[in-house]
């Protein structure tokens, strides 16, 4: 067998493994199930990319988001890999059939939990003899994860219980309870676990308490005028991304909004501008992040209480991927958590939804009519119908109450972390069932923090205003050579 370091160099151009990668890869080669928790940006993908060159059977990767899948396919193509395909609902029927008939010719096959419900796909996969099945962002499996995806609970249904390929579950942010769920739902047998400390030593955490919500925007502006980016302001609504952006722009700061309601091209332009260093700040909803690999993000600002500690970790994890110091600031006004609670419980079905569902099924009508009648949101219906097909109505009611309570209590955990008079870093680690060995300087607002030590002052950049004429731009795009 080829030496792993050689393969690393040969296919990816890296000279050394990052912590955890080699251990995980070795376990995979021994055909063991593996749970790997590595912090955001540590290089989880490599844990399945490299084994692709060890085995001569394809690796199947199940990925929760289409955009993420796209991003990973492109990443592999950049490394020069041609035998990679995304098997998703965008493929045309005939193409799909063609791919399914020739699975063996690929090295990497990406797919979504939704695709795995299809019986043709299942049949083809059973035949395919994958070398490895990867579940990326595996925390989505847990019903306590941030976005309930019932389809995720069934992703191993097609597999033979005994004679199956090893499974690799990857996540950056899973608590002990979530890891337990992952192992159970994936039917893993005595998996090898690699759990890296979730501590990011170069991240420094501040909490700023303000009196009133209207103080947030001026605070952000004043801060951004003084300190060095690039940075991301995370907020909860599309409208607020626009409000903050406008405010920054009109004060000469290169900023842009980003949210899922924008055209696909516009979203890419923003990402490209940010990567190219043309933007100092992005004001975004949580749609921004996954798949954005910018190493030198220096700051993250939250103007709200994130819905879970895990989400908070994901979002602040965008900063400091280059290992240099980075600052995370959370602006807090009393009762901010109420807004978050409202937003995240909005979609959870209510008692009356269970009753409506029963009325429809009682009349032998398809309860999906509830969607057409706008009686329930899509997410809500997904959750409701999943449980209605599995539990008695009484139990479903209880389940929904539990889900609601659990979500609310996750917000409270986040809020407590922010408001408790304790070290944030310790609390973060504690949340993930780990303990802290050593505190870095400028640890957090509780331990003491001074921006001047962590951040440079803002350099004055020309505003984006200058727009060379179309002719000049054409010759920049297609220069003479």
């Amino acid at each position, binding site marked *: 067998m080829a030496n792993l370091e050689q393969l690393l160099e040969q296919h990816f151009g890296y000279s050394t493994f990052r912590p955890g990668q080699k251990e995980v890869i070795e376990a995979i080669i021994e055909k063991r199930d593996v749970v790997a928790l590595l912090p955001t940006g540590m290089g989880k993908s490599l844990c399945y990319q490299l084994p692709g060159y060890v085995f001569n059977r394809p690796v199947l990767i199940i990925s929760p988001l289409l955009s993420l899948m*796209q*991003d990973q396919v*492109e990443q592999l*193509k*950049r490394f*020069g890999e041609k035998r990679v395909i995304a098997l998703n609902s*965008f*493929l045309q029927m005939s193409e799909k059939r063609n791919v399914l008939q020739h699975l063996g010719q690929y090295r990497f096959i990406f797919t979504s939990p939704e695709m795995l419900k299809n019986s043709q796909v299942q049949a083809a996969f059973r035949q395919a003899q994958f070398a490895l099945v990867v579940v990326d962002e595996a925390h989505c499996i847990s019903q306590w994860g941030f976005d309930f995806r019932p389809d995720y609970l069934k992703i191993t249904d097609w597999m033979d219980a005994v004679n199956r390929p090893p499974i690799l579950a990857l996540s950056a942010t899973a608590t002990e309870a979530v890891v337990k769920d992952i192992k159970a739902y994936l039917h893993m047998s005595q998996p090898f676990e690699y759990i890296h400390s979730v501590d990011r030593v170069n991240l420094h955490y501040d909490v700023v308490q303000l009196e009133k919500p209207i103080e947030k925007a001026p605070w952000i502006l004043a801060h951004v005028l003084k300190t060095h980016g690039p940075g991301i302001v995370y907020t909860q609504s599309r409208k607020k991304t626009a409000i903050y952006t406008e405010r920054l*722009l009109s004060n000469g700061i290169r900023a*842009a*909004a980003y949210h899922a309601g*924008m*055209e*696909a*091209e*516009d979203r*890419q*332009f*923003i990402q*490209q*501008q940010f990567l*190219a260093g*043309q933007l100092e700040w992005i004001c975004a909803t949580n749609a921004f992040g996954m798949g954005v690999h910018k190493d030198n993000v220096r700051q993250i600002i939250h103007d709200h209480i994130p819905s879970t500690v895990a989400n908070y970790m994901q979002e602040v994890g965008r900063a400091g991927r280059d290992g240099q110091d980075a600052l995370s600031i959370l602006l807090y006004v009393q009762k901010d958590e109420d807004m978050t609670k409202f937003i995240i419980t909005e979609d959870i079905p209510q008692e009356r939804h269970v009753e409506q569902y029963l009325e429809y099924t009682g009349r032998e009508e398809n309860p999906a009519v509830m969607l057409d009648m706008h009686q329930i949101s899509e997410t809500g219906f997904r959750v409701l119908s999943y449980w209605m097909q599995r539990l008695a109505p009484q139990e479903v009611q209880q389940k929904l109450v539990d889900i609601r309570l659990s979500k609310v209590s996750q917000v409270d955990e986040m809020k407590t972390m922010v408001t408790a008079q304790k070290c944030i870093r310790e609390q973060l680690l504690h949340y993930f069932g780990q303990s802290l060995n050593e505190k870095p300087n400028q640890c957090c607002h509780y331990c003491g923090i001074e921006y001047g030590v962590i951040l440079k002052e803002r350099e004055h950049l020309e505003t*984006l*205003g200058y*727009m060379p*004429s*179309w*002719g000049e*731009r*054409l*010759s*920049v*795009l*297609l*220069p*003479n*050579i």
Partner: protein
Amino acid sequence: MYFQHLLLQIFHKFGGERSVSAGFHLLKGKRSGQTIQDVGNFNLHAFFGLTPKLSKEKYLDQAEQLVGKGYATYKDEQFFILTNAGREKANGSKMMQFNGWYYRGNEHIFFKRLSLVIQSLSYSVQEVKSFAPIQKNEDIQLWVKHYLVKNNYKSNAFIQTIRDEISDSLKGLPVEESSLNLLLYRLTGFNTPGWTWEQLAREQESTLLDVQLAFLEVLHAWLDALYKGPKYYLSQLAEGIRIEQLLTESAQKTANLFHQGYTLEQISAIRRLKGSTIEDHLVEMAMSLQEFPLEQFVAQQDVEAIVYAVQQMNSKKLKVLRDSMPELSYFQIRLILAAKGVM
């Protein structure tokens, strides 16, 4: 502002004979008999289907602003008419270069091809092999791949020629410089990211709707120019973009039977459709097909009489025309109006 100019031009053509909604249906590209007929009668091909996603509220808000500025007014609730000031304004402004009827959204396919071609070339010139393609649609990606390979894209000759083609053909377009800027800033390349609509609107002190329309105008004008005077590499990108099939599906079936020599009554029987529906199809054909045999249905002198009456009475209202020529049927008058839309 741009959008309001557009509305002025549209309602100038309607000549006060249509409601405010007629303009909305036109811009949305509604495929109903009435709207299609309006296109022909009032010669509104240019504006058909320019803003398929426009909301009625936004539209009405803009129309309201025209009223507020004294350029237009409602008459009897039913009609939206330009005031003298509005007509002057419409006459005074430059004719917009849209050609909605022939592109129907396909212009975006042209632009997507172009944007992926330019991005690919921009990276390839810098010898950067891989990049995240700006167009995610697989059909577009495949198309562009073929195009690049076929044209030997790595050669200097190709890159220089296509750049000159772009530059030469854009220079000749009767559109604003600022609109050409929009086009180039929606393109992206190595170390040269595109700009979002928001950024462009801000830069040009305009609105989203207006910059998107100005961009569309450039595409239409450009495509028209490329069809008139082909450029070797660029015209390939425009392949299949212009709609040759101008009839609705059902009208096309009627047309096929008509061309085989069946009478209207026979077609109605074969297709099990009402006679009036078949007549609608004929009107659609008269409007869209250059070689429509109008003389089979009306005598040449009647055609001229109607054309004259329209000019005299400055109206295309069927009732008014019918009253002036009682010997003609409504169907015949509609055919004439449709065939002679350009008046």
